[in-house]
């Protein structure tokens, strides 16, 4: 066994341990600092871990630079029963619409959300924040420095996704529309 190979196996194993004990999602930087190696060397291990977890009860998910271990989404029925949690989603059409806009346009301000929806969205944005599905992720560098909103790791978990790349692209959504009309 060559030295490099051994090192690689170790890194993957260490990354897994770190993610396992962490009580919150870990950033690439946090993982890199804990191991004492550059960020670039961790990414490969994360990819391998992600592949390892296919067909397992644990999934590796990420939101941007942040990674977390969660229960496999396909087991949500049993897990929610154990945790005594409601699985049925209860988001209104308005909430879904707002969430979709934020998912695809993030980061964006409330004014920008309202521009697309054509109606006031104070209440809905507040509700989504309380639910933890969106969060304030910064300030826009414009007059008044308005708050920028984005989706959260909880949103990714809530949808049972690996990350936001798993969602169809905007262009693909457009295609859905054309297919619908053709059929």
């Amino acid at each position, binding site marked *: 066994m060559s030295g490099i190979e051994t090192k690689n196996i170790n890194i993957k194993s260490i990354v897994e341990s770190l993610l396992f004990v962490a*009580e919150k999602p870990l950033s690439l930087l946090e993982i890199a600092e804990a191991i004492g190696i550059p960020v670039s060397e961790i990414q490969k291990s994360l990819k391998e871990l992600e592949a390892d977890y296919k067909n397992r009860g644990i999934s590796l998910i990420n939101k941007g630079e942040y990674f977390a271990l969660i229960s496999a989404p396909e087991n949500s029925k049993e897990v929610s029963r154990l945790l005594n949690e409601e699985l049925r989603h209860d988001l209104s059409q308005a909430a879904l*619409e707002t969430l979709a806009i934020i998912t695809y346009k993030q980061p964006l301000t409330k004014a920008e959300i309202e521009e*697309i929806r054509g109606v006031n969205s104070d209440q809905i944005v507040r509700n989504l924040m309380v639910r933890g599905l969106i969060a304030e992720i910064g300030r826009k560098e414009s007059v008044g420095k308005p708050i920028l909103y984005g989706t959260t790791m909880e949103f990714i978990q*809530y949808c049972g996704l690996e990350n936001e790349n798993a969602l169809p692209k905007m262009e693909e959504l457009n295609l859905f529309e054309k297919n619908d009309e053709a059929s």
Partner: protein
Amino acid sequence: MYAVSNDQFEGPLDLLLQLIEKEKLEITTVSLSKITSAYLEQIENMQGTSSEMADFLVVAAKLLYLKSKELLPDIKSDEEEEEIEDLEAKLREYSIYKKAAANLESILIDGQRGYSRRAKSESEIIFLPPQDINHQMLFAIFQETLNKLPEQIEERVITDSPEQKITIEDKKKIIYSLTKKKKTIRFKEILAGAKNKTEVIVTFLAILEMIKQKEIGVIQKESFADILIMGLK
């Protein structure tokens, strides 16, 4: 009748989109013009806050412009023209997000969800006694604690008990009746029967209020000297 917050539609764009889809039309200026009367019909019976209604009316105005242009093709305003194009573009954009929302909903209906490990909450309270603790020490600490307590507790009970409460109104009545009996009374005299600090404060506040309402007049020769109170009514 439609309420704006009704699940039927979420805003003017949603209403437009639903009307266009109902007629199986594409999102074009022509389609917008075709659904104008249906749109107006819908918002006529709508109940919403004025700011919600304003959003609907802005769109209605744009649709009416389209309609009037059909009747009088010569009339053209560049500004309005731009707004119509803007409306069309916005509607297109909105329709894509509607698709995205529908897609999101189908994902959520699937009910697949990931759960993170339950973090052991930091608020969990654990009692960690020192290793060399024994029952005598615990007894001594308990005794000490008890010795510190009683006075404070008693005081609390007295000030909080309802029958001890004296309102400013009560005090005003008492002071008023006193000024009827005697021409001048001394502040100290009134305070003599006070049971606690609160009553002193209430008495003082009552006097201030009576001065303001010109029911009494007061004289104080120098700072901290006794205050003489006279009835004016």
